[in-house]
């Protein structure tokens, strides 16, 4: 253990901790402003915003010796006896000087800049900048440069931190972005014919500490201060990246990666980032229907539990196809529900969409081929109920043979997975219940068509491909007519009050050994389920 002094405060660091001055100051509650430094990128120490004074305290005499020059906090390791001063006049002046320099050529077009409200240049200027302009006044330019299909560059807002350039070199490994020209005429650019076009491209917008890189998908859609941010988990693939869902009045505007060292570090892929638009797709199912003598008739959610109870009780053997888009809690409740009607109900994992192969990036980031968030979570639940032995095909075969009379299917897939092949094998079933977001061949032929919800509308937990469980709450409410799958099970299981995934997870943790680690409070970054029973990751 070591002691580091930050602005007079003594901070403990462990022997194996490798922190820089910015990180150790943060621990002391001191924010050292910075642009170019990012924990996920190499240190370049070039923006010079994080300059601090440093020195060492002699272990024996306790005497403090300061270095005469300023040092970049990002580049200066904090070790036992390190002393940092972040609030001296010298530090204040150098920050103000850097801010002033950055603003000399900046268009100061905050009113029309997407970044306003979450811009470091803005925030730091208020906190550390000069209160009056001293440089000559120039007519500002505001040039926009198209750098790729997802990202646009507002050239004159750039502070040359080079984070985006380093990202494409070190994390995506695609190296599209570069610096052209020299000195104050430097700009970010791409080579002709080689646009910023890779599956991690959107991250450069998050990395940009100012409003230089704009996300075309989000540009001019919302002022950031109108939005509320919710911790969520991306449902795009089985990596299960931690995200922030930015929403206003039940409309999702943006997904951003949320730091989680156990899962996605600071990144997410573009498929996930831009893969939320289906939430507000006009084609979302919102009409609740049951099959009638001729065609379909509308029913009310209030009628559904009783109607299902009657139909399922008389359907004979039941089966459930549990979608890897359902949460662990929903999978558990649906399994319980079906077993309530039929103690020997067959339970199987629904279709698992797979596209291509896992895509690995140099920055230790992988986009998974498995395009659903909770295959492992559902599998663990099923293993508890029936040893996990039943497959989708088993269920369908038994429907075809007439052994199974009632089937409950769940969807939530972005692309229709409950396809014609499955639909045809269900024709013999007496009762087919479907909960889904979009129509499908199975939906077309279902006896009960129950509109379900999208990932941003769900609460509960997913277990990613590495066995890491993350819990999250809904960010937006589903469209009128659609209902959270789990809340229906909750009601039909006659649980008290509102659907409460937290209490369900507590019950699961107490019942299923694989979920031991999920007992108690789940941190926002989730927990690793370290059960030997977990199947190895593909």
């Amino acid at each position, binding site marked *: 253990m070591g002691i580091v002094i930050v602005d007079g405060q003594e901070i403990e660091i462990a022997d194996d901790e490798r922190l820089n001055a910015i990180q150790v100051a943060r621990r002391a509650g001191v924010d050292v402003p910075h642009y170019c430094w990012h924990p996920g990128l190499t*240190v*370049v*120490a*070039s*923006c*010079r*915003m994080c*300059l601090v004074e440093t020195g060492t305290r002699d272990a024996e005499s306790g005497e403090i010796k300061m*270095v005469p*020059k*300023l*040092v*970049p906090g990002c*580049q200066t390791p904090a070790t036992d006896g390190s002393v940092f001063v972040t609030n001296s006049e010298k530090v204040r*002046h*150098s920050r103000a*000087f*850097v801010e*002033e*320099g*950055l603003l*000399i*050529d900046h268009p100061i077009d905050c009113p029309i800049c997407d970044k306003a409200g979450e811009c470091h240049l803005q925030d730091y200027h208020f906190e550390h900048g000069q209160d*009056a*302009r*001293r*440089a*000559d*006044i*120039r007519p500002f330019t505001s040039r926009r440069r198209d750098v790729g299909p997802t990202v646009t560059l507002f050239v004159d807002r750039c*502070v*040359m931190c*080079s984070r985006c350039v380093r990202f494409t070199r070190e994390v995506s490994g695609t190296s599209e972005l570069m*610096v052209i*020209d*020299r*000195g*104050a*005429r*430097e700009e970010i650019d791409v080579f002709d014919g080689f646009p910023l076009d890779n599956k991690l491209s959107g991250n450069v917008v998050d990395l940009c500490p100012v409003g230089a890189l704009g996300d075309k998908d989000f540009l001019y859609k919302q002022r950031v201060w109108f939005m509320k941010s919710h911790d969520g988990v991306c449902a795009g693939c089985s990596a299960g990246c931690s995200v922030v869902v930015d929403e206003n009045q039940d409309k999702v505007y943006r997904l951003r990666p949320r730091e989680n060292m156990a899962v996605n570090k600071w990144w997410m892929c573009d498929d996930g980032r831009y893969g939320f638009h289906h939430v507000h797709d006009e084609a979302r199912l919102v009409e609740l229907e049951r099959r009638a003598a001729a065609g379909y008739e509308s029913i009310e959610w209030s009628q559904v539990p009783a109607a299902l109870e009657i139909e399922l009780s008389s359907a004979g053997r039941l089966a459930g196809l549990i979608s890897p888009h359902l949460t662990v809690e929903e999978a558990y409740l649906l399994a319980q529900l079906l077993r309530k009607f039929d103690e020997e109900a067959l339970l199987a994992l629904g279709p698992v969409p797979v596209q291509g192969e896992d895509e690995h990036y140099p920055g230790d980031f992988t986009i998974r081929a498995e395009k659903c968030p909770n295959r492992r979570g559902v599998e663990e639940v099923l293993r508890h109920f029936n040893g996990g032995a039943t497959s989708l095909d088993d269920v369908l075969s038994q429907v075809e043979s007439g052994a199974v009379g009632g089937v409950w299917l769940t969807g939530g897939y972005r692309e229709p997975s409950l396809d014609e092949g499955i639909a045809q094998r269900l024709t013999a079933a007496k009762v087919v219940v479907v909960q889904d977001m979009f129509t499908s061949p199975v939906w077309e032929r279902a006896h009960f068509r129950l509109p379900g919800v999208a990932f941003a509308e769900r609460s509960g937990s997913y277990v990613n491909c590495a066995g890491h469980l993350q819990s999250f709450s809904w960010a937006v409410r589903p469209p009128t007519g659609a209902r959270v799958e789990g809340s229906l099970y909750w009601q039909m299981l006659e649980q008290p009050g509102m659907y409460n995934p937290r209490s369900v997870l507590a019950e699961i943790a107490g019942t299923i050994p694989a979920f031991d680690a999920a007992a108690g409070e789940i941190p926002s970054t989730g927990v690793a389920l370290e059960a030997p029973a977990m199947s190895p990751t593909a």
Partner: protein
Amino acid sequence: MSTFEPVLLANIGKEKSFTREVYESAGGYTALRKVLKEMQPADVIEVVKDSKLRGRGGAGFPCGLKWTFLPKDHPGPIYFCLNADESEPGTFNNRILMEDDPHQVLEGLIISCFATRATTAYIYLRVEYPLCFERLQAAIDECYEAGYLGQKILGKDFSLDIYLHSGAAAYICGEETGLIESLEGKRAWPRIKPPFPAIEGVFRKPTVVNNVETVACVPHIINRGVPWFLSIGVPADPDNPRDAGSYGPKLYCLSGHVNKPGCYEAPLGITTRQLIDDFGGGVWKGRKAKAAIPGGISMGLLTEEEFDLPLDFAGPGKADCLGLGTAAVVVLDETVSMIDFLHNSCRFFDHESCGQCTPCREGTAWSVQMLERIRAGKGRLKDLELLLEIGDTIGIIPGTTICGLSDGAAWPIKNAIRKFRSEFEEYIKRTNATGYMETEPVEALPIAAHGH
């Protein structure tokens, strides 16, 4: 002075001085033969250390000491980079050596590589020196023929290859880590240190970077001995523990308003006045000198009254200059406007800043904007304060930047305004009689295009 015998320039002026034949006829490559026959690498380092040879590239770092920073018993390759980027304004001593006596440079380089156990050397050559390229390449070829390069040099267990690399035509490529990045094929953005090149340099391997003139001194130290080298120059100040002394001969580049500009060899410690009078034939057109740049533009300015300070590593600092730099003395006669001088200096650094560090990038650009406006008759007294604030803030000395380019940008500003303040003030008042007291931000001039 009269006893001083030039050694670095001894061959220059001879017919075909750049050939091996002429070089060897005057004792060339005897130092190399002696080293390979009688010495171990550590012995050579010891000799160079004892000679107190300091780097001639600008920073004056003790050469032998730098060589000892290399990791001991390093299993992989060690690289030697010969810094021949020579782009400090006013400096052309490397050029003279490479054009007219390339074998002297190569002999020094080969011995230096032997000492540092480098097996590959790169000569990073300023691209604007095509004749140097030609002559060096021819000399390298001659060395391979003579067995001074290649495998088993002179039959000893020492192999070396030298590659000539054309620079990327930017001042910053001369900064040692900018040079390394450029050599690796990247933008010459100086690296943050540590690690220093001796630990992790080109291709992430231990690397020595030395100036052309530095290595050119080495054969003479071997041939003539340490006491000879120490007998030339200015001894260390016993009262200043940080003064490492200034020993040996030095090539001074004299230019500007003198009758006989040129590259002259003199003992370290000659004064500016001696240089102008004894070598330069006095200030031109019978005028008086007003000031001089002591060692390349980045070192700042000496006033005429300061011309009697020795041009050794410690001298210019006594007059608040940055240092001796490259010992390139540029003389400014009494007709020179300090405003024009500073404008030109600021223009250079604005053009050459690599642009990584905010204080350097923005400070150099802002300073040139102000000077352009001052020259256009729209200056304010306040601008002088702002310029000085820039000058006092940017640089590795205050710690606000990565490399020394910005210290070089700062010093001319600080020296010119502090030493010639009344001239600046009078100019501003005279040319902007109604606005010189203005303190609010003013309208900028349109951006001017910058050329080389």
